[in-house]
């Protein structure tokens, strides 16, 4: 029971379903929208959902997504300003890394790819920072 409560607290603590709850989340959201704007200019449509969580060195966070072959995707992530070191990686349904095009600058990072097969993929956000960094992830497709 104790373990269950701990897991529940961990999930609630790291994942927010809708909207930003803290200043860091609001800032991260604003920063990531800046980055995703570049993809929108290139015809990518932005999904309306957001994922807020915290990552630190050795404590990456992973999200499940279901994608379609034929579409191209960009997963964009940002932290509040002054929090560099985020990286985005993508893995197939067996957890094997897939080749992605990456972008990284300051507090922002992105990974883009076109899946060969439809189905489940994992998007991992890792951080090189010692302290836990709040990030916001969004994705766009075309």
């Amino acid at each position, binding site marked *: 029971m104790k373990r269950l409560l701990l897991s529940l607290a961990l999930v609630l603590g790291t994942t927010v379903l809708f909207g930003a709850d803290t200043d860091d989340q609001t800032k991260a959201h604003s920063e990531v929208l800046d980055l995703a704007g570049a993809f929108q200019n290139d015809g990518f*449509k932005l*999904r309306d959902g957001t994922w807020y969580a915290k990552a630190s060195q050795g404590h990456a966070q992973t999200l499940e997504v279901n994608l379609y072959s*034929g579409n191209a995707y960009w997963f964009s992530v940002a932290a509040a300003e002054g929090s560099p070191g985020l990286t985005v990686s993508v893995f197939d349904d067996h957890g094997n890394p897939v080749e992605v*095009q990456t972008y990284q*600058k300051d507090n922002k990072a992105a990974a883009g790819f076109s899946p060969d097969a439809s*189905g489940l993929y994992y998007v991992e956000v890792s951080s090189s920072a010692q302290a836990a960094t709040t990030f916001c992830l969004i994705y766009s497709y075309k």
Partner: protein
Amino acid sequence: MAPPWKWLLPSIIAILAVEPLGAQQTGGGSSPTPAASPLSEAELKAAVTIDSLTVPTPGEFFKAIDKTGKPNWVSQFRPPTPIGGVNRAQMALNLGTLIADGYIAVEAQDGQQVKNIGRDVLALAKKLSVSDSVLARGKSITQFAEDGSWDQLNEELEATQNEVKKALEENRDTDLITLVSIGGWIRGTQVVTGLLVESYNPETAKLLRQPALVGYLRGKLDQLPNRIRQDKLVVKMNADLKNIATLVSFPADHVPTADEVKTLNQASAKLTKEISAGE
């Protein structure tokens, strides 16, 4: 087939144009990044799911279809569906199918159909007591439909769906969120398989592979409180989804045959009908 990177290169150029000098691409230039280490079993199990990102929208599904040919979207319209509803579970499922109808109308670029569906979405949302927050969205949908702003409509439909889910969450109706997603996915699957039954195309058929998604949706159904899980329609749907799960769970290198697509179409059409009738 064009190499996948071809579509991503303009985006890289777009970022570099938007971001100040000094922006850096890892991996050097436009070449792909070296692969990371595989995820462990524990890491795979620890992965989180978020309804608004883990479940693809019908629009995302349809965008992939568009690349495989010129689908006859109009052929997938259905007659107006009754928005009465026997209970909240059925109404939530029906709302999901209606939102998917909105995406179909957008793909068909039929402004009147978009407006009609938008009106039904709003009426059903009202019955679920979430109309206030989606009212503004309804107005935007009408405006975009009149202007023929199809790209904005796609985004507005997803925003409407998320607005509905957010309102359900605020009304402590979180259990119904899953049902909205399921309704949308079932109707989307019916439409895509319907297009394939009309005109079979192996590239499109490959898009039907979504084993984890159905597993995720069924897992969410299992977590529903007893009163909803034992609802007659939800019980029926759970059983039918089990059957559908086997139809969309095929290896990555398998291409579903025309007969397999037909079977999936019949299963999803049956479910859509049951949802709108509240049987």
